[in-house]
């Protein structure tokens, strides 16, 4: 067979090969993104995502969306502009969450016996869906960054609240007020995670009284806009194929 001849003999065979290729790419993309995104998120979100006694209304709300919007932006840049496929953010977040759940269940619980109700990951899928839909409807990177990035930051806290709220019920423990999440952090001994490294409830948002979560979420959304732009370009640069032309 010469180079100019087709590798397939019929349209049906071409469709079959194309679909096989689809699944191979999807499978590979999913696990490559899972690995890269998971390492990135563990290094940057780290303890804020690992433990319930780090999931506060100031810094967790601020940090998690900012460091989480990175890979969705990069994957979107490839899947949308090359294929018009609007699931870059969701596939990235599904990969991250699958990796996280495997890690939390088998490592945190299976090996070291931290209960899952203490070390479950943060929920990111609502934000990812909004990010994908806004790109689909707007066909604009700028609008996706501005509206989608803001939405990604804003929806993070309410999207997690049904799971977090039960752990913020107060208890009186030996004469001190703590939340159930604080108590989890105190009860389940972590020799390498002393209490003082916990970065929670720090900051200067005192003038907002108890309602600091929306302010933190807005700030997080604002920074997420900037990070979206940055990582969208990272994705474009990383997914470039100009090296093929030079071969």
């Amino acid at each position, binding site marked *: 067979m010469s180079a100019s001849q087709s590798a397939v003999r019929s349209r049906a065979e071409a*469709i079959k090969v*194309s679909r096989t*290729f*689809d699944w191979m790419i*999807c499978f590979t993309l999913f696990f490559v993104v899972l690995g890269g995104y998971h390492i990135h998120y563990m290094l940057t979100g780290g303890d804020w995502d690992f433990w319930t006694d780090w999931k*506060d*209304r100031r810094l967790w709300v601020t940090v998690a969306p900012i460091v989480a919007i990175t890979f969705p932006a990069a994957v979107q840049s490839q899947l949308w*502009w090359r*294929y*018009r496929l*609007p*699931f870059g953010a*969701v*596939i990235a977040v*599904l990969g991250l969450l699958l990796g996280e759940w495997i890690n939390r269940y088998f490592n945190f619980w299976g090996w*070291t*016996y*931290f209960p899952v*109700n203490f070390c*479950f990951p943060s*929920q990111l899928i*609502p934000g990812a*869906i*909004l990010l994908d*839909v*806004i790109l*689909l409807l707007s066909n604009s990177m700028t609008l996706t960054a501005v509206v989608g990035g803001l939405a990604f930051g804003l*929806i993070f806290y*309410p999207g997690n*609240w*049904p*799971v977090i*709220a*039960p*752990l913020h*019920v*107060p*208890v009186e*423990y*030996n*004469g*001190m*007020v*703590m*939340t*159930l999440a*604080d*108590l989890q952090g*105190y*009860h*389940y*001994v*972590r*020799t390498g995670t*002393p*209490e*003082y*490294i*916990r970065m929670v*409830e720090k900051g200067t948002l005192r003038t907002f009284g108890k309602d600091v979560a929306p302010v933190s979420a807005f700030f997080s959304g604002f920074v997420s806009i900037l990070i979206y732009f940055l990582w969208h370009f990272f994705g474009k640069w990383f997914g470039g194929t100009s090296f093929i032309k030079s071969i």
Partner: protein
Amino acid sequence: MKLIKDKVAKLSFVALLMTVTAAMLYTPTASAHGEKSQAAFMRMRTIHWFDLNWSKDTVPVNETMTVSGKFHVFAGWPETVDKPESAFLNIGTPGPVFIRAGSWIGGKLVPRSVSLELGETYEFKVLLKARRPGDWHVHTMMNVEGGGPIIGPGKWTTITGSMKSFTDPITTLTGDTVDLEKYNLENTYFWHALWFGIGLAWMVYWMRKPMFVPRHIAVEAGKADSLISSTDKLVGMAFAVGTIAIVAMSMASTNAKYPVTTPLQAGLLRGMIPLEMPAQTINVKVEDATYRVPGRAMQMTLVITNNGDEPVRLAEFNTAGVRFLDPKVWEDETNYPDDMLAAEGLTVSDNSPLAPGEKRTVEVTASDAAWEVYRLADLIYDPDSRFAGLLFFANEAGKRQMVTVDAPLIPSFI
């Protein structure tokens, strides 16, 4: 030749398989937490743990035990370690094999970090509730911000029973009693499964159609807009509206179900109450100190002055949790861990009672394999070759007085 090569290859493969199998069958349990790898000066010149007591050697699941005692925050704290202005009384166990049901310094609950004063001595207690069966090394431990974990002596403790029966009942301020071990677990699984399902549904909607090759061809041909239909946009809008609606409704229902929630509690606890130590009546000056490497012994020349009103004798030298005792003066009755107790490890050139007002120069030798086993001899390789420890003097009635020592140490290799 080929036959020989094949045989070598075959035998090599068999050998590799046997090695892998042997490695899989022999998997000893890791038992140390790295305290011996910690620089000797960190253990000798920061937190001195003493009068330690592990209340039980064996404890069934759901039962409690305490680790209690005292710790002295050394005044000659090394320059290379941040001072304990923010420290956390921890417990050194391999993960949450116990839960920490309570911890106190000077009678004050310390669930958060505390500020400690150099030169002060504090009483502490950690209440542990057994959770996971096994043999565990339970260490005292103080984490110091900027200094890392400072691990104290450890003792083997056995937990019996089954982890399945472990419970951790807590009554909230809203009047509910929950088992913290399993609390909120089903709710967590439900919400994560639901959102994962919604995310998968979004993926499936797009993946059921041809994806990469034909779409790439269309995009390259300038027909990208034809790839998104009005139905696609409607489905997208439905997903977005549905997402916002689910989030809004779940937040409202959660707020209705949990009307009282509070923020995480944080912040440094100050004002730890130190132990009131008796006025020091014994003065000790270290004339010189050497560590004899071949003999695994430290020798000190001490000038001791008794300014009290009772005769005293040197009973113990304690450094990094290793206790060297003069058996003629003091015997341990606390069931202290054997490997850290040199019951006959202290010899004094003249340990007759030192009368009130008397001043005496003595040669003190602290020798035991523990110097090597606990890698305290590595002190000679530290950047600041000083040793430190606690000397305990005892009177006839057994009343003790603690004196700290801190001096340069000269190694002797012959």
